[in-house]
């Protein structure tokens, strides 16, 4: 049993508990401000002082891990500013920022190279814009069963040979060379796909283009990568949004 298991559930107040001495305003303020070391705290409040010191301890690395995403959010929000003045508020900044933040969710998988090739590539490029280094996709990861995922349970069904980018697949049925590759099938369903949905919505709104501000252009490039080519975006997004 740990100390706090059930500890703070409604318990009958013990009749033999000595009443705590009242705190005056100044002492309460000093306890709250961490100005009283536990030994100097009033009787009964030493543990409170220690608890508050732990609650206000210096930042831990994981609490600052989102800086890259926060900076990207800021950049996109500011880039979107003139458009907001021109017309009704657009949700592009929200969408793109949310997409960037979603990338945070797959960052752990991406940084270990655990994502399938295409997703890994997209994540790598997008995360590069927010200062996160991601290894390139494993050469075989899009043609073979991807390694187990913890953060982005992408389907383990191998992609149909026709959509693979790797010319090494031995059994690719030959298609007419001038036919562009068909859109990718709708990809998997957490992490990156939610990013895909957000990006596709932004693209559908007409404001996600390669001619936008740098953050917008980066978001557009991410969508191009997810779709497997700019020409595939309409079909890809139909699948993402319609399915």
């Amino acid at each position, binding site marked *: 049993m740990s100390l706090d298991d059930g500890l703070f559930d409604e318990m009958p107040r013990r009749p033999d508990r000595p009443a705590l001495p009242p705190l005056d305003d100044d002492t309460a303020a000093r306890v709250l401000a961490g100005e009283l070391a536990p030994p100097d705290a009033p009787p009964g409040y030493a543990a409170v002082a220690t608890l508050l010191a732990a609650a206000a301890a210096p930042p831990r690395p994981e609490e600052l891990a989102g*800086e890259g995403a926060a900076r990207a*959010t800021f950049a996109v929000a500011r880039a979107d500013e003139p458009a*907001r003045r021109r017309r009704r508020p657009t949700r592009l900044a929200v969408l793109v920022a949310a997409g960037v933040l979603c990338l945070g969710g797959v960052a752990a998988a991406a940084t270990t190279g655990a994502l399938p090739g295409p997703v890994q590539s997209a994540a790598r490029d997008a995360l590069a814009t927010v200062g996160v280094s991601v290894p390139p996709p494993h050469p075989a990861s899009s043609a073979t069963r991807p390694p187990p995922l913890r953060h982005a349970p992408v389907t383990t069904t191998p992609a149909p040979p026709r959509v693979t980018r790797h010319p090494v697949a031995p059994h690719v049925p030959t298609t007419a060379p001038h036919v562009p590759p068909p859109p990718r099938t709708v990809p998997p369903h957490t992490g990156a796909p939610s990013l895909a949905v957000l990006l596709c919505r932004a693209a559908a709104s007409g404001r996600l283009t390669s001619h936008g501000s740098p953050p917008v252009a980066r978001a557009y490039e991410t969508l191009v990568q997810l779709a497997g080519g700019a020409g595939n975006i309409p079909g890809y997004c139909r699948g993402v949004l319609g399915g």
Partner: protein
Amino acid sequence: MGRVLGEDFAPVLASARDGDEVSFAALWRELQPPLLRYLTVAAGGAAEDLASETWLRVARSLGSFDGDEHGFRGWVFTIARHRLLDWRRREGRARTVPRPVEALDGRGGADDPAAEAMNRLSTDAALRLLGRLPADQAEVVMLRAVAGLDVPHVARVLGTRPGTVRVLAHRGLRRLAELLVDASEDPSTGVVTP
């Protein structure tokens, strides 16, 4: 979590308002940890999302803020509290179960078991304990002790009167003290049984 920007605050804020990402990041680094802790106590696992929503609003509204560093803190936490209230409405509940944190080992020394146990208290465990306070007391204690806001700023963030903030702070501290005494009374299990 004291203010580290000090006299650098005004120029940092000014260049962030001009769109400088590096300056914005300096503000973010300063406030994100206490913001996350406040939201963790108030909203458990939703804290990260609420903090992200808060910063998006801050980024878009930065031009409308005018004030000193303390005022900036209050402004950011006010935005965060609005996100929190929206979230509570969406969730249809006033409280949520705090996210799981590591177990607190209550076996302490003989002289002052409560203080000894607290010496080994991690930040996560402390936040979880604070999350067991009544919501209004927890918010006041967090805004005072972790966000570093003074009574008038806390009152503004919470939309209440300074007198109310003082009362809630007293109640919160006393409740914490009682809970911690209870925790220390049975050091063999760390759990008090009636």
